[in-house]
């Protein structure tokens, strides 16, 4: 017996060290462990703990093993562990185990325990084992006796150990179980935290890649316009009319200005403030459309037919230009040679709608569900980065507007609708993109 007690003490000391427990309730663990089973822990229980300690590579399995051994040692039906973050108001189910099919039949209810349901279970924290409260939630209500203990885990999370049974059990033995459960639960919560951090890092990496790729895509269009205009001036400078010459110089100046704005905006967005608000100005929509059509024509080549109604709208012209330029660039890219791309601008009071129509092949039905997603490319049409339409949606959303796609009469239509931000309340997350499926 002395040997087993000494072994239990050694296990307890290791558990307390490995858990990094901070609760005073856990400070005397080795002695309490030794008191389990009327003075010494059950050999199977102690051995299971030992094995669990060697299995922290699988923390949830280790916790389930310790909970199973604890429930068996106490003669109880279920032992469950929760991590309660009082500050965040969250209850995290860590694991449960027990006998006679109790866990399989009630696992979902145990997983769904809310903070309110948890509160219903606590009669008096000073009394670890008591008759089950009359209003106890399922599955605990199925049992006559309830045991509850808590310990503070690292990172300020509270471990709540709940045991339910049809018959009363020894509170001292129950107290003795807290340290090993807390030790393994600490490993479980740490493992979950590591997993969450890993997911966060992965998400941030994806966002960073997307941002970099979007910026590269956005910069490419004005750069192409500048390059196109510069090459035309270089090769045909002497043959150009003064009007064409001035137009090309104007394109270079405008697109350089846009590039400067985009770079500084990207800097503000990424480094200073990720949620940089739109820079609103009352903007002449027709003038904006002419500017964009000129730049797109120079960059990509091809004919653009523009019919834009007058309209003065409060919006962020830089963002709107980028969105419209992306749509036009896309249309020119896929439009058959010699076929013009049509841009129609319509003003309806508090909104302005640009419709870009081309006679290209349209979007493959396979890609329709994810047409506006990042990196969604149509394999039948090589050369796309899958970022243009995504960028249009993002910009439209920032402007409180939306983009839609439809295919009618052999023509591909993208419609960009922008509200007058002076008069319209912009919802935080408007549905910014939609696809109208062609009739079958």
């Amino acid at each position: 017996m002395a040997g087993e007690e000494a072994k239990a003490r050694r296990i307890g000391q290791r558990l307390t060290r490995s858990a990094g427990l901070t609760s005073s309730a856990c400070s005397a663990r080795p002695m309490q462990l030794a008191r389990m089973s009327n003075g010494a822990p059950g050999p199977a229980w102690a051995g299971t703990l030992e094995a669990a300690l060697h299995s922290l590579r699988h923390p949830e399995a280790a916790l389930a093993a310790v909970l199973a051994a604890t429930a068996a040692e106490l003669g109880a039906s279920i032992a469950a562990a929760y991590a309660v973050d009082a500050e965040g108001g969250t209850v995290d189910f860590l694991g449960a185990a027990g006998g006679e099919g109790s866990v399989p039949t009630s696992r979902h209810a145990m997983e769904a325990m809310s903070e309110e349901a948890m509160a219903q279970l606590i009669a008096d924290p000073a009394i670890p084992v008591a008759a089950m409260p009359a209003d106890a939630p399922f599955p605990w209500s199925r049992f006559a006796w309830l045991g509850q203990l808590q310990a503070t885990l690292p990172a300020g999370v509270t471990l709540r150990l709940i045991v339910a049974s049809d018959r009363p059990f020894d509170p001292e033995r129950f107290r003795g179980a807290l340290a090993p459960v807390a030790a393994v639960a600490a490993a479980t919560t740490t493992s979950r935290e590591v997993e969450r951090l890993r997911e966060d890092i992965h998400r941030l990496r994806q966002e960073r890649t997307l941002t970099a790729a979007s910026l590269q895509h956005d910069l490419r269009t004005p750069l192409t316009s500048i390059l196109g205009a510069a090459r035309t001036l270089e090769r045909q400078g002497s043959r150009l009319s003064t009007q064409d010459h001035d137009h090309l110089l104007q394109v270079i100046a405008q697109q350089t200005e846009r590039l400067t704005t985009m770079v500084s905006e990207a800097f503000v967005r990424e480094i200073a403030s990720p949620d940089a608000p739109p820079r609103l100005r009352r903007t002449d929509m027709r003038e904006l459309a002419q500017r964009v059509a000129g730049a797109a024509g120079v960059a990509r080549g091809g004919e653009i037919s523009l019919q834009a109604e007058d309209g003065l709208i409060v919006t962020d012209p830089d963002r709107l230009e980028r969105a419209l330029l992306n749509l036009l660039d896309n249309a020119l890219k896929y439009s058959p040679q010699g076929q013009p791309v049509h841009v129609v601008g319509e003003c309806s009071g508090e909104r302005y709608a640009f419709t870009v129509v081309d006679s290209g092949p349209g979007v493959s039905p396979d890609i329709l569900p994810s047409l506006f997603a990042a990196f969604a490319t149509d394999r039948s049409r090589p050369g796309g980065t899958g970022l243009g339409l995504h960028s249009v949606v993002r910009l439209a959303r920032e402007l409180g507007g939306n983009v839609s796609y439809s295919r009618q009469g052999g023509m591909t239509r993208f419609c960009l609708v922008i509200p007058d931000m002076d008069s319209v309340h912009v919802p935080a997350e408007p549905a910014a993109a939609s696809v109208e499926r062609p009739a079958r």
Partner: protein
Amino acid sequence: MGSKELQSLAEELGAQDLFLFQVVAPGRLVNVDGYGRGAGWAGNIEVQQETEPWLAVAMQEGLARLTRAFATRAFGPYWASEAAAVWTGDHLVVFGGEGIGNLDSADLLAAARRAAGLTAETPVAKRLADDLEVAQAALAVATVSGSSLREVAEAVAARTAEALGCEFGAVFLFGSPPRVHMVDRGWRPAATEDEVLTALAPVAYSAASALQVEQDLADSPLAYPPLSIGEGLVSRCSVAVGPNGSLGVLSVAHAGDRPRGFTSLCQRIMVSSGQAAESVFGAYLRGDRATA
């Protein structure tokens, strides 16, 4: 008995397996005959409509299809990547095999009606053969001997796994300290004995007096790594050994290479193997004590 006709029917349709279920009570069905696994498992699959969502859909809507890139549990112990279940009004017919998921509904319904017309009871010879299989499995375990507890436990696990065609077998024995002994019949966890013992502990402590069948480890609240679906096991059957499971638990599992679960015949074999194991371990422990 319609086995020959069921075979030609299955072959016409291109089905590798055919299960013919008869309703034996409201919501309860038994596989009375079939082809492929349906013949091998005849009389040994009893399913409940309320616990088999896929079959329930077939019984409500007339037809349910299963088409997956990899095998998944369809019902009871049956795993398949493609299957179709057809409710004829009084029988449920399940066809399994490559290409079945895309067959025309009218063809499936016509085949199911023909199969239902061939209904017969599970033959007495099949039942006797099943009983013999149970007895042979128990005998194989009961005649285990060895010079160490490990040797005995590994032999018990191996013979049980062999009787059930399982790829993995293990015995968890309570004691000071508890021990786990395992056999590899095609699958082995990449883990230490402590890790396997830890993963089996929730089953061992909860199997006090019961047979535990986990037909799909993905849905089991008792499956933990390294004995979980993520490591390649798909189903598990465990039985308590000793009075109230006081000695431990005997557990066998199927791996993902040939995914399947445990029929009621498998479960009977498991129970009788557990009883035989109790006497083997009891005898060993008594001898051990006598020697000491």
